[in-house]
């Protein structure tokens, strides 16, 4: 395994968002890969393990004035592209309105990683084992992309196009992740990661979900599976099966049957398919019980 020599890598540090977009545009036109980076918590890992890296990086860490922070707007919560997990976790309103996302953020790597890692980076990294990104998926979050061509918004549901792939064009930059207003403070936000250890761990299987009960019935259900498919994945069949049901009418076998249509986990070095499938079903059951109990009070 041949580690890349970082000294041979060119890093561009734009002073404004506009400059950043121009650099991306030029690189795109010249056919050069220019990879945006912020906290570098993924880039450096890739470099260490000798993964093929582009020759040029666009360091947007310096654009925190334009791309940083959390903003509450009518549309919802705008999480700036350079907003770190630590920054969000230090904001009481964030933790109060998005408790499960806060829990996910607090379980990313460890403190050092949380101080540098960003929500936007987590989304763009497109790992099936991500912590925060699946919870954002369960919250109906959207990705705001900017380029010289203009601005567009892509629902996270459509953002990951395959294993470690996104629909972002090479000339585009994520400027923010938006959590819609309806999701803020909504009931039934639930997250659990089963990792290989308490911290500094990669998820073996996990569930990020939002389960809304009304009159004892599940009226709204969003389940995002972690480490169960090539990307973080919403479970359409399982959600359809669960929607409108009362807790007592949810059958363990039927639940697993529906789940099997959505998810076909694999064996790998961290766990095996049998364990993943069974524990995911149990996480769903646990989420159902706990969110149901919370609304009953």
């Amino acid at each position, binding site marked *: 395994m041949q580690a890349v020599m970082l000294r041979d890598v060119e890093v561009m540090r734009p002073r404004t968002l506009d400059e950043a977009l121009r650099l991306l545009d030029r690189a795109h036109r010249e056919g050069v890969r220019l990879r945006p980076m912020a906290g570098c918590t993924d880039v450096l890992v890739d470099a260490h393990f000798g993964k093929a890296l582009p020759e040029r990086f666009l360091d947007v860490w310096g654009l925190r004035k334009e791309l940083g922070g959390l903003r509450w707007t009518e549309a919802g919560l705008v999480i700036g592209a350079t907003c770190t997990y630590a920054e969000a976790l230090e904001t009481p309103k964030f933790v109060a309105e998005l408790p499960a996302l806060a829990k996910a953020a607090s379980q990313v790597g460890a403190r050092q990683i949380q101080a540098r890692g960003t929500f936007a980076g987590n989304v763009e990294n497109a790992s099936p084992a991500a912590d925060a990104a699946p919870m954002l998926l369960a919250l109906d979050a959207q990705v705001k992309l900017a380029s010289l061509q203009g601005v567009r918004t892509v629902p996270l549901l459509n953002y990951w196009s395959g294993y470690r792939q996104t629909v972002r064009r090479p000339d585009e930059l994520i400027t923010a992740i938006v959590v819609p207003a309806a999701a803020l403070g909504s009931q039934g936000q639930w997250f659990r990661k*089963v990792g290989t250890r*308490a911290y500094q761990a990669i998820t073996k299987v996990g569930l990020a979900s939002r389960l809304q009960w009304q009159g004892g019935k599940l009226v709204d259900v969003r389940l995002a599976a972690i480490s169960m498919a090539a990307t973080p994945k919403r479970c359409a069949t399982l959600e359809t099966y669960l929607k409108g049901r009362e807790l007592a009418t949810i059958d363990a076998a039927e639940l697993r049957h529906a789940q099997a249509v959505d998810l076909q986990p694999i064996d790998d070095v961290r766990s*095996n398919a049998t364990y993943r499938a069974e524990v995911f079903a149990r996480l769903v059951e646990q989420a159902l019980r706990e969110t149901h109990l919370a609304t009953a009070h």
Partner: protein
Amino acid sequence: MNRPLSSNPTSRDLHRIDVDDSPVDASGVVGSRHGRIDSLELLTGVGKYTDDLTLPRMLHCKILRSPHAHARIVSIDSSAAEGLTGVHAVITGADMPVRYGVIPWTQDEYPLALGKVRYIGDAVAAVAAVSEEVAKAALALIAVKYEVLPAIIDPREALTRKDVLIHEDNKHGNISKQVTLAFGDVDAALAGAELVIESDYEFHGATHGAIEPHCAMGHVDGKGLLTVWSTTQVPHYLLRELGRVLDRPSHSIRVIQPPVGGAFGGKSEPFDLEFCVAKLADLTGRPVKCLYTREEVFFAHRGRHPFSMHYKTGFDREGRIVAVDGKSLLDGGAYSSFGLVTTYYSGQLLGSPYVFPAYRFDSTRVYTNKPCCGPKRGHGSVQPRFAIEVQLDKAATVLGIDPIELRRRNFIGENSQTIGGFHVGSSGFLQCLSEVERASGWRHKRGNLPKGRGLGIAGSTYISGTNYCIYPTELPQSAVQICLDRSGRVRVFVGTSEIGQGSNTVVATLAADELGVELDDVRVLAADSDLTPVDLGAYSSRGTLMAGNACLAATRELAAKLREVIAKTWDCPPGDVGLAHRKAFRHSDLTVWMPIQEAFILAESQLGTLGAVGSYKTPTENVHGDYRGGTIGASPAYSFTAHVAEVEVDEETGEVTVLSIWCAHDCGLALSPTLVEGQIEGSTYMGAAEALMEHHRVLPSGLRSDGQKRETGPGVDGLLAASSLLDYRMPTSMDVPDLIALIVERPDPRGPRGAKEAGEGPLHSSIPAIANAVYDAVGVRIDDLPITPEKVLAALKRKAEVG
């Protein structure tokens, strides 16, 4: 009060160490609360580890490693690498065609592979260049042509496959070592037993995970003296092997071991990098340094051997063992390392703390195409200890006997002999059991814990060094040289290897205590073959007992001289003179005292320069068995341990959490109690990690470390599943349980002031205690380590199906 004597004209202008006028404190430094003497230096970053060292014109070395688990080297073309600007030398196996190995009888490694590679990571060539980057670039230019051979990953396959030979010249195919020893009529005893427990156990591989990677620097000076600085824990063996491989007389080699950032057995033999830096320094005339990457540390390994064990244990109605029959298959990896010893230890170290009226063990170590296994904390005896302690737990369940009581009934006793003929001296095993029973609240908790929670017990023993050296010799195993003078300070020159365990502090504690100074007044200079006497190294938990005894021999000689001189001054018998805390005093009248510095000055002026040497040779009487192999594993003194673990099992996910773990350890006498507690904690955490998390796993085929499927067959087997600290699951501070360390003291007449080992014993029983607690919690036995959530969940499911 007797004022300091200062009439000596030659010493009037000397700076004096302040001594207060408080009453004499006759209690010594031994047993007092103190930290390590080197901690401040290391914690403030002033202490220099090997990689902190640099010399003018120093070159950097990188090593090319095999991408194949098993292959013949057809050719190596290094011309392009040699032509790269900044490259000073490239060496291959042909440059050092001498086999080495820490055990003289089983030397089967070349510093760089010659003819064949035997695991992914085996060293093939080395480059010295002006920087690590240039050296790395040069590695990519070395063209090695391999003829890929089928690889053996499964140790069972090593036994059966005759067509694939990992070491062609080995007389016994792929068997590296086989030992069978039988004592008493095992079959008859089993046939007559009230209860026979028969089970299979799998103990997995685990690596040491020292934070400091291996590093070495070599330099040949103008007079031809080769100096090698290394992260080794065995400078003496390193020096011997450097001499053999490089064909250099040992007087032209100096080995220096700087402070080491953890070793745990993973640095207890020579490695490729030490030979490479020495050879490259010789060739280039410049200093050369090599630092392993973390991945290379995982390749170097020498970790815990995976064991497949089959145990039959017979019991009588009262739970007393009547016979033990254990069969083990040891997965040795590509080379021998300490494997001969491991194979013996797997049986020989099990003979206590319980009486085995009849005992047989049959252990076979095989070669496989994997990183080589060796000694890891608790060398060779952690695996069988797991098996026997779970066997005892199973028997206790069947017979309805409290598992602590069952262990008490089987205790071998003090001043006894194991069935293999090892002499057991002092033993605080019963006290250890009582301590963990009391502290854990065993009696009221056991059976009364909420669902999913349970308590487990296990016991163990370990050696305080081995009576016989790795190579036959009549020479002392350890020696110490001590000087003191008018400065009021003491200098200790000792060969022991400080690897974080506190060996320097242990000798300083004994020296300070015997000579009446404070710890701060003792300087320890260790592990430099030019300046210090020989010690065999930091392994087998031998340091405290052996270097400690050597240190006592030297300090007692000096203390006697001091007492004599002072006694003359005070006109009292020498036996009335005490030395403690910077004061010499009269036992019979504590108001009579003088600063110890004055005593040193007095003695120096009367006797001249004050120095003494001491050495330690192991006892020759009443130690071991009188049969082939009967000496291997025999120790002058044995430590004893008991653990109680309290676990919680999440039945939804199969995750096991150790809530608390209590460890009582009999270390003879705690010379430095805080250090003993540190060893109990470190050992127990390491054991808990092996029980639940860590796994040095080699993938047979079909899987890549990123989880993607791939082709199988020759040339693609043998990748490490986890060659980074991300995927190799060492626990973080968030994963470790509450730990209650309890010191039990049963002084042993063979230990210095009664001290025995503390560094390895407290690991053993943590693993079976956790396994037994899991059974108590949820009623399933996981006899196949590590106890992963996947296995627990599958076992719970099976249990639910069976009903």
